[in-house]
């Protein structure tokens, strides 16, 4: 009859006692929390992602690392980036699950010129609507994380959906479901931030990672995918995670200020020439005949009235 996951009950007929769930505040913002310190690089999330999204298994690239391919692809949303790192003279393997970060202020959405091709849900998920995508690729240059990928066959752009089709049904994303070590978590943004901060504290105090911290970049208003890093001061070492991700000003200042201004100028220009024509008048080839009626209409009227 009703879906109690989305519909909250206000009143119940002939029900004694309090209404179940009444007054609870739903925290709508969801978040994926990735603890890179417990990732073992098994790639179960990669496989689960490909399976859930019904993509064919594509060719991989071997470049002397354990990484499946250099970057995410249009039909491969989820990729663990492997980086060899030296810390205090010791070798360290940094494995970071790379996918769409679902920014609070999404650069892809700012850049997109097509009505309805990119939406951001209330819960923070940024989703591409391929039926409205015109394939211009502006989102690719608008993204600070290099995530959206172009499919040359369909001329549409694809990326991780944070399994919006699963989350909408109350399920966790496929990658979370598949993770065997529990390094992936899914919940509300508040809960995940609390969990991540606890873990970061643990790393600082117990495990000796003095710079451990949470990656939730505020330069783009925070993200709906957050990391706990061994060294939060150097996110770049984790396969190029930007420490200060930015949306190019051409998609913010230019698009929301200068573009409408330019458009307004164009319309003013059209008005200007029309009003120039009806005030300054046309420029006839000379000599043009002497005007019959004087310039001022009232004078002409007065003269007409003088005549009997």
């Amino acid at each position: 009859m009703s879906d109690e996951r989305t519909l909250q009950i206000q009143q119940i007929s002939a029900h004694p006692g309090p209404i179940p769930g009444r007054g609870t505040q739903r925290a709508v913002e969801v978040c994926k929390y990735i603890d890179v310190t417990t990732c073992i690089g098994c790639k179960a999330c990669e496989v689960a992602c490909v399976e859930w999204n019904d993509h064919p298994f594509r060719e991989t690239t071997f470049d002397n690392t354990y990484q499946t391919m250099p970057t995410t692809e249009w039909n491969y949303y989820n990729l663990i980036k492997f980086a060899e790192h030296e810390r205090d003279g010791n070798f360290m393997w940094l494995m970071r699950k790379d996918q769409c970060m679902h920014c609070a202020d999404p650069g892809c959405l700012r850049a997109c010129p097509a009505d309805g091709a990119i939406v951001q849900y209330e819960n923070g998920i940024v989703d591409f609507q391929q039926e409205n995508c015109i394939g211009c690729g502006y989102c690719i240059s608008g993204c600070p994380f290099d995530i959206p990928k172009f499919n040359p066959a369909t001329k549409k752009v694809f990326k991780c959906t944070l399994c919006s089709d699963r989350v909408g049904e109350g399920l966790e994303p496929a990658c979370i479901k598949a993770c065997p070590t529990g390094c992936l978590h899914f919940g509300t943004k508040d809960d995940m931030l609390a969990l991540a901060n606890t873990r970061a504290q643990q790393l600082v105090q117990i495990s000796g990672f003095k710079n451990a911290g949470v990656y939730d970049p505020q330069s783009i208003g925070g993200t709906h995918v957050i990391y706990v890093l061994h060294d939060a001061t150097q996110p770049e070492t984790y396969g190029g995670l930007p420490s200060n991700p930015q949306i190019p000003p051409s998609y913010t200042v230019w698009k929301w200020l200068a573009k409408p201004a330019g458009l307004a100028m164009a319309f003013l220009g059209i008005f200007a020439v029309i009003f120039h024509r009806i005030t300054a008048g046309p420029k006839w080839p000379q000599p043009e005949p002497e005007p019959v009626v004087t310039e001022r209409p009232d004078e002409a009227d007065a003269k007409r009235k003088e005549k009997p």
Partner: protein
Amino acid sequence: MSTSVERFDEDARREASRHGRTVVHRGELLRHPVYTRVLHWSVAILFVLSLLSGFGIYSAWLFRWLTPLFGGGPVTRFLHPWFGLAFDILFFFQFLNWFVPMTWTKADSRWTRRVKEYASNKEKLEPEDVGFFNGGQKLYFWAIVISGLLFLVTGLLMWFDDAVPRWLVAVSYVVHDIAALVMLAGFIIHVYEGTAAQPGTFQSMTDGTVSEEWAWTHHPAWYRDVTGRDPREDFEHARRRQGARARALESWELEQDARERAGEIGPAEPPER
């Protein structure tokens, strides 16, 4: 290089006028031959197509208005680079055809200094040193040359965005827009000047001819070049002729009035020009 370009243009003009023709009536001058007109309108059509398809993508407010003209957003996005490329190629030939008469001279610098008088229509006749093209036309031409180059470079960067860095695409996006806005401003003025602002000008791009009066009014130095006569003298002559005709008409009208009052039936023909 310039000689081979000239030879190419000569051949093209000759070939074009074999297929099309320009009829010059009495009192008219040939302004634009067939080849020039064909080039101009090809460039114009491709410009309008590029403009409309580009503006659909340029602004969210125009997206739903303009993209249906081309069959929807994806088709608009697919066609726009090809429209632009065709525009650039055709404009290249127009550049070859026109870069000699479009060369900037001292007369054009003088023209730009008195653009206020020109725009306010204070001066009925153009200064005697204004040749085949005036300073404004040349400015528009060179603005298109620069914009066309910018369109090509930035357009290719955005077209093949997977081969270039992200920031370069973001910069191209702005430069492409600025070039388009500059061209649009020039285009609005160009269309206005060519139609409503100066009667007799549009004919130069359709029939290829202009009246002699038009020529000595707007391009006196060119008039001197093609007719070998003095534009000011011819203007004065025309003015005197017109004055004489106006006086003749006036006296004829008075006579006619007098005859009507007397009940006579006289010659009804007005005096000839």
